[in-house]
């Protein structure tokens, strides 16, 4: 079923918030799709990076429920290729921040089994904390 997008002042607020957080002028995105075509994580994503940008342009809060921003590996492939010079990694990070500021922890370090803590590379723990805790 096709979902209706309702546009209200909330949408604009959402867009402005993400633009402030990321420092990127998201309305500059002209939806060419270069980001998606080269994204190494695209096969796992539910929405494409360009779709993510489009939803933010419209201020559609459902973008926060997508998986794409969590799957972004911050490899910067999209950033170095974007013909409009936009940094999509920053936008994905801002979306993660929006979600995490709701105070939801997706992992609890205290509850990780000890053998995993011992075996996990330190960098994985650091990025896990950074990406998945509010």
């Amino acid at each position, binding site marked *: 079923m096709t979902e209706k997008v309702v546009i209200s002042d909330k949408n604009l607020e959402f867009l402005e918030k993400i633009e402030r957080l990321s420092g990127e002028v998201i309305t500059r995105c002209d939806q060419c799709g270069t*980001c998606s075509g080269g994204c190494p994580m695209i096969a796992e994503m539910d929405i494409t990076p360009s779709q993510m940008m489009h939803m933010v342009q419209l201020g559609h809060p459902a973008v926060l429920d997508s998986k794409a921003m969590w799957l972004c590996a911050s490899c910067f492939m999209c950033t170095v290729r*974007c013909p409009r010079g936009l940094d999509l990694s920053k936008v994905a990070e801002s979306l993660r921040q929006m979600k995490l500021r709701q105070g939801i922890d997706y992992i609890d370090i205290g509850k990780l089994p000890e053998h995993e803590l011992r075996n996990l590379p330190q960098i994985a723990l650091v990025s896990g904390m950074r990406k998945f805790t509010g």
Partner: protein
Amino acid sequence: MMNEKESSHQDNRIGVYVCHCGGNISDVVDVKRLAEFAGRQEGVVLSKDNTHMCSDVGQQLIIDDIAEHHLDKVVIAACSPQFQGETFMTTLATGGLSPYVVEMANVREQCAWPHFDSPEKATEKAEQLIRATIAKVRLSEPLERKTMPIGKRVLVIGAGIAGIQAALDLGDSGFEVYLVEKNPSIGGHMAQLSRTFPTEDCSACILSPKMADVRTNPNVHLSTYSEIKAVEGYLGNFKVTVEKKPRYVDIDKCIACGICEEKCPVKNVPDQFEEGLTTHTAIYTPFDFAVPNKNLIDPEACLRLTRGGKVCGLCAKSCPEDAIDFNDQPEKVEFTVDTIIVATGFDIFDASEKKVYGYGKFDNVITALEMERVIVHATEGNPIRDLGKRIGFIQCVGSRDEQVNREYCSRVCCMYATKLASLLKHSGPQRDLYIFYTDLRAFGKGYEEYYKRAQNMGVKFIRGRVAEAIENSDSKKVTLKVEDTLSRQIIEAEFDTVVLSVGMGLSKSSEKIVEILRIARSQDGFLKEAHPKFKPVDTNREGVFLAGTAQGPKDIPDTVAQASAASARAIRLMNQGEYAIEPIVAFVHKELCNGCELCVPACPQNAISISSNKAQVNEALCLGCGSCISSCPRGAHDLHLYTNSQLLEQIQAALEDKKENEIRILLFADDTCTYRLADSVGTAKMPYTTESIIIRVPSGSRVTPALMLHALKFGADGIFIGDCEERSSPFPHSGRVMKENVEKVKAILQQENIEPERVRSRQFVTVMLGGFVNSINELADFAQAAGSIPQEKREKLGKNKNKELFGEKYD
């Protein structure tokens, strides 16, 4: 109402006329009081008020008074000189005076209209304006408009379709054309194309008759294989130096029989015209419909020319006309022209810069220009490449892409890709064609219909910019990865041939021409037009015009239209036999000049030279901006119509009646933008501070630090200088000079413990009405809050400031 008296000023007999403007002025301002006031000023022998000065009756009044009362100068207090200035100049000329001894006091746009709600203040301000205008006119000189002779000779640089069209239009109109082309044949990129959109005319078939016309037109002197080395001079007198490269073949003898090509043993020279897809011999003709259709030798490939002049020589031995000359040398040719048209064209974007598409590395990735040649050869039954079944076009390669510093759209790629795809589908209906685009731009006449026709034929248009191309190392097929942004699916498909729709950039050879002609470039790198709307083919240099893609990406119809426009603009200047130059030009007080040369680099027109240790100004080159004046430590430079002494008198008169504790600010308004903007503010009846007097100057750079310091010394509490924003300025350097001058004055004020914020500047466009009002009011508020400058501080500003302005050396 009339006041008449004998002049007390022995040199002047000034008449002052105050216009009611049918109530526009007289409803607010007390015009009778103004006329009486004017009558009391020094040098004024007569002052009158009248309902409509610009009417026939008003003008006749002036003409009669000139005769009866022997007036030698006139002031008209009425509307803006932007509206009726020309009218009254003509009136004076009719009355037998120089048109340059009339000045207008703008009491409508600057008093009656913006200050409509305070009639008393408006009248006071009008008095100040009239007094200042009379002070200026006292020193006016009876200048005459000069004329310079101009002939009918034009240089057209570049013989692509733009240069060809311009040369033919001019030649057909009886003008003498020097057409200079760097390549061995004329024709440019259009000669390389297969067909043209949207009509699918064969490009060579419609171009070659025009090329033949160039050859046969008696008014067109064609120099091919030639480069412009130098251009000196100005409109009506451009001295051009051209270097003809050696062809090693006498084109008067050569009959292009082809025997030499058969004999030549060097057969592997990449053919430039064929985009390197095929090869030719070291002695060759550019292409089969070249003009001139004559042979030439590539000196870097020829065995004889590369190996010391002893070997080979087979071409010379076989030539039936004895046309080969291995000792051919570059030849310098010099001639003089009156105007110049620059039609130097474009280079395609170097696709190997966009590494993700693998151009130059992958066998089956080619440019669209290469595809043009492939199609031409296939059409001629002489295919040079197997294209396979599935062909993909990648759009916007080197266009709309900040990663390669090309932000602009090249305008033609959508349509040429559509054309190439249509031609390929037409010649091979089994082919599967895809165009991957960002936005499809089918803007021209018949283009949308042509796009639809391609869709009807089955060409698929996929909205998405290709992210990368990967070559299959065995099959050499190319996989493209792209998001179909409409379905949000990722396409990974294999293509037999991938075509890169490369954009346009300014040609390398144009870059040299820019330096030689000293013409401006816009931000996108292309050549800059004098005004984007009203002077689209003029440049910043008078007599130099633009045509074709050197000015920006465009298709053939637009190029041809622009070339005809450039011809018409050139003819407009040339067909009178002479052209008028405004006497608003710089001049030098020789007795003050010591030949220090500081002024020479200050002139963007290169109009100043030093001769016998004195600066001199070339009046034909001078545009009258006045920026040279602030470069001179000795005050030797000056500008007619806005002389130093005139402006000083005007400033002093504007401040003369200022009472203690009153504040007054002076606004120096450049003629092109700020003065007109002030008129618009007046017309819109937008009030601003009445404690401001506007002084008209040709440019912001005319207001020297010395003038600013004098204004402050004489009683100004704030100074505002308005200039044009660069893109709309006739003097693009003026804003920079203005800002530098303002900074110098601020530093001096700082030293003297005067608030530097009292001196401000801003660059305007003529629509910034609110910005203008705010700027003036903010300065007035600042001056009001800071108070009037104490007299003892003002006195110090009168001292010599050369050390601060020009450094120790000029102290």
